[in-house]
């Protein structure tokens, strides 16, 4: 227990004059034994003073006056030795009892007053706990970073690995190896940033698919990799488009892989990302690197597919019950061949979706640009994990 304030309180008290002054002309030869009634009177005076002590300082004074060296009982006690043996025993007993009673009362009073003091002290130290505490600003990680990590973790938990590659990429890896030949109509659909001079055949990758190609080129199946990363297209920058955005793609190559495994994987991904019961559906589509190809829709995790929230059309899926999530398909054997995987032995599936867009509908972010402005009010809302 912290006793410091107690000492301070005592020190501040004025010094009280003793009730009976010191016996300056003390002469042990002349003393006479105290009469029993005088002992009792001294004891009673002490007990009364103890009971009257209002605080620890007063009690300390009382202790000095009634039990100190010059207190009547102490003086009386000292005189016992001078008494004849017979009287000595009787006086000793009497004085001893009196002193005992006084000390006991002192201890009891001390305890009461200390408890009172502590209680008062705690009250006095009360603070306003609603005062602000934000002395050191809070840091945060970007939701695109933590979002990519969340996705990666979902796949790593399934035994997949996370593959990465450069953002400035060889044209052959970004296009040709993925069955997007120089004359493929799909190549015009992706407006690509080329580095100067264009004859160097280097692009800012338009998707993370070259990472898939790199993975296949560097090792043999089984391959289970997920590739999150930054990609580029020459889109104008507005609330829903950005020349810089983020994708996650997945690639599985193994013996006996089918579209069913693709569906199973995406259903699992959807459920982990958006909650149990949220799964996907496929719509036929076209991508050069997959055949068959499909668009992936996600059951709307807000209205759970009903298209309605509280009787009004769901805002997240615009009443559709489904959210367009990405593209997928069975890896085109032409891609496998270009990347050194035997298409007779292995099949594979691939999928891809925008991380930015996924976060936008998962978190109800209205304007894509919020992700790239660097306003700390946006980012700190997400903390350090998504």
């Amino acid at each position, binding site marked *: 227990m912290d006793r410091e304030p107690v000492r301070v309180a005592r020190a501040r008290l004025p010094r009280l004059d003793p009730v009976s002054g010191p016996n300056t002309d003390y002469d042990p030869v002349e003393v006479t034994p105290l009469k029993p009634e005088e002992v009792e009177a001294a004891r009673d005076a002490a007990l009364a003073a103890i009971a009257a002590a209002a605080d620890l300082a007063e009690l300390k004074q009382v202790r000095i006056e009634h039990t100190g060296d010059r207190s009547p009982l102490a003086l009386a006690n000292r005189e016992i030795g001078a008494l004849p043996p017979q009287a000595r025993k009787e006086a000793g007993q009497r004085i001893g009892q009196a002193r005992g009673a006084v000390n006991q009362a002192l201890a009891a009073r001390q305890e009461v007053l200390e408890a009172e003091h502590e209680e008062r002290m705690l009250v006095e130290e009360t603070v306003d706990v609603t005062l602000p505490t934000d002395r050191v600003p809070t840091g945060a990680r970007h939701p695109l970073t933590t979002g990519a990590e969340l996705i*990666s973790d979902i796949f790593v938990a399934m035994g997949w690995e996370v593959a990465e590659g450069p953002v400035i990429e060889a044209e*052959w890896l970004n296009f040709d190896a993925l069955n997007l030949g120089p004359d493929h109509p799909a190549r015009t659909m992706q407006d690509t940033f080329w580095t100067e001079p264009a004859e160097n055949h*280097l692009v800012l990758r338009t998707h993370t698919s070259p990472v898939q190609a790199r993975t296949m080129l560097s090792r043999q199946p089984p391959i289970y990799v997920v590739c999150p990363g930054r990609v580029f297209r020459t889109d104008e920058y507005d609330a829903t488009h950005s020349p810089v955005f983020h994708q996650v793609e997945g690639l599985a190559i193994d013996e006996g892989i089918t579209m069913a495994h693709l569906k199973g994987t995406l259903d699992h991904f959807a459920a982990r990302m958006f909650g149990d019961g949220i799964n996907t559906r496929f719509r036929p589509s076209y991508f050069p690197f997959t055949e068959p190809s499909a668009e992936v829709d996600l059951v709307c995790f807000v209205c759970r597919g009903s298209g309605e929230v509280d009787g009004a059309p769901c805002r997240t899926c615009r009443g559709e019950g489904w959210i367009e999530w990405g593209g997928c398909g069975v890896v085109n054997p032409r891609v496998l061949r270009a990347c050194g995987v035997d298409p007779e032995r292995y099949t594979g599936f691939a999928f891809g979706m925008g991380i930015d867009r996924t976060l936008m509908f998962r978190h109800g972010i209205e304007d894509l640009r919020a992700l*790239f402005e660097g306003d700390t009010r946006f980012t700190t809302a997400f903390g350090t994990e998504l």
Partner: protein
Amino acid sequence: MKAPVSWIREYVDLPAGVTTDELTARLTALGLKLEGIHSAGADITGPLVVGRVLTVEPEPQKNGKTINWCSVDVGAANGTGEPQGIVCGAHNFAPGDLVVVILPGGVLPGNFQISARKTYGHLSAGMICSARELGLGEDHDGIIVLPADAGQPGDDAFEVLGLREEVIEFEINPDRAYALSLRGIAREAALAFGAPYRDPAARTVPEPNDLGHPVEIDDPAGCPVFVARKVTGFDPAAPTPDWMALRLQQAGMRPISLAVDVTNYVMLETGRPIHGYDAHKLTGPIRVRRAREGERLTTLDGVDRALSPEDLVVTDDSGIIGLGGVMGGETTEMSASTTNILVEAAHWDAVSMFRTGKRHKIGSEAGKRNERGVDPVITPAAADRVVELLTTYGGGTADPGVTVVGTPPAPPQITISYDLPARVTGIDIDAAATVANLEAVGCTLDKADSTLTATPPPWRPDLNDPFDLVEEVARIVGYDRVPSVLPREAAGRGLSREQRLRRRVGRTLAGAGCVEVISFPFVGDAAFDALGLPADDVRRRTVRLANPLSSEEPSYTTTLLPGLLKAGARNIGRGATGVALFETGTVAFPTDRGPAPIYGVDWRPSDDELAKLFEALPEQPLHLAVVLAGERERAGWWGSGRDAGWSDAIGLVRRLAAELGVGLEVESATRAPWHPGRCAQVRVNGVELGHAGELHPKVCQAFGLPARSAAVEIDLDLLMRHARDVTPGPEFSTYPLAKEDVALVVADGVTAAAVEAALREGAGPLLESVRLFDVYTGEQVGEGRTSLAFALRFRAPDRTLTEEETAAARDAAVALAAERTGAVQRS
């Protein structure tokens, strides 16, 4: 591609009661992606009726305009049968014309409520409508004047105008070029509902003969089939029939003239682009060849084009008259006086079409179809259909000549095993289903015991590979039947070392109160100038983009600082009193090791070839940058705050290095954009990691940051390479600590790090820690000198140190500091 539902239904007997929503849902399930359902006039509410103009009284107004006060017969539609008085501002009509009238109580698009209202001194009871007012187009030259036989006054104009009819707009994927026609879309609809289908291109065509216009093909690979037919005595003034004009409009094309409209209509109907020539302007036989170097052509759009030897051209004796399959030339263009029309229906090589379109930046409806692949077999039928429509509505005669040169390319033969669709999709598809569905899409099958060989129909040039057939079978079976099964993955190796380290870096910085930012990696000279980079700074040598979004920022960045400093300033500008931001991102430095090769795709490039490819890429290290501006600790009821400064920046690098178990060397350095006296170069094993410190005042000013803002930029790849993988468990003593504080006076320029290193070495193994706790300059130490106060802490692993041992170690430390740095102990 926009397809009116009524047009689709013309070729397929959809079950009664099939709604447009059901139709689109089924077509979507087959792979025709729905873009939207349009219904012109859906936002108009009646009464919208046919009216006959009875009188027109022009009334000039003070403002110079002339309005017409009209009376219009609307039959019984107004309830009285009396003529309706209407004020109209248009002048393209006369008494007797049939017009479209919206009566009071009607609502036009944009929730424009029509009521009888006083205007120009008349009570105008309704409105005579223009196409734009009805939301039918941008044509605002005047009001709609209906053909004389369009109907009677009072008739419902919705029907007359084809309003409220539903038009489905599809987004057609590149592999489904056949669906760029009603023929193809209706075929899919028939497939979706198992409904009977009538092929609009199935028609009996006249036998080819040599009476027609002579045609020679020099490049049969580029132009395998060329059909020429002629119509003579055509009336160029003949109007396009309303039904055709309406369908063209519904499909998103503008009616122009009967001859042009017919070619467009047949293109929409069959998918085959058609070109019409003014036959009078043709001289001599038509010849198709590749262009020669230096040849030029002025195309229909008036652009004079330099041709490439890869371009396919159509010529006659006068020279080049068209860019084959892409756009015709000016010299033989049909005009308002064209009476003889030569109809060209030709099949072109798709790749040539794509390259020519791209080279000349021509994106036409014809080119779009030709470059994706058109049914080569229907070429004569399409030409015949054009002739039929021209003669039916334009009054001419079909010339008996029928020129057909070339033969359609042979379709591929694709052999698959019966169970391939099942093996690829995981759907239970038996051999019978495979056969039935391939036949349903038009394949001709040659069925062997274990394999079948499919010949795709001519309208499906996209079907070339076994997996293409798998997709056809699967989409008809239905993608909703794909089961959901998790694969049995191999044991993965988890996150890589670098991936884990990157997370650790991010968490450490966030834990230190920094907020992560992701900015665009584009940069330009303005940012380099603002950073004060010298002209020869390596960061000014960038990887430039050939097609940057902005010419101000034409390069991939070499430093993360511009984006970060801008984000910092943005936060301050929005009222933040302090900001601490970090970004990890790729920067790029050119290597100039030549172009990246383009290899074939039929087999894997060799390892050497791949190495050459990888080598051509720029250096792309991962950088980390931090900016600290304004308050680092907030002011509050606890007292004043503290602004960020140089030491916070260096401190962050130290903290990061400690987190990763990397020993860091810090030395003063001079480098833009930092303050020359407050910049540290941080190094690992003597190799530069990066810089940290206070920003140059001019840089703070240039970016709009508070004075004394600080920044860091380091090569994160390098730091992570040195990260300690396994931390040895530390050993420490629990014997009592012995404390010795020493104050050492050194000359200015002697660094604290140097003194500390000497103390550390001199103190020997008993030293547990040394920490600089005070720096003092002033009178008591004399000018040009600094007092550094260090707290030395000693402890032995096996015993309590004696005062003598501690003092001896302290003295040894001080002695070595004195020897190495000239430090003098203050008494």
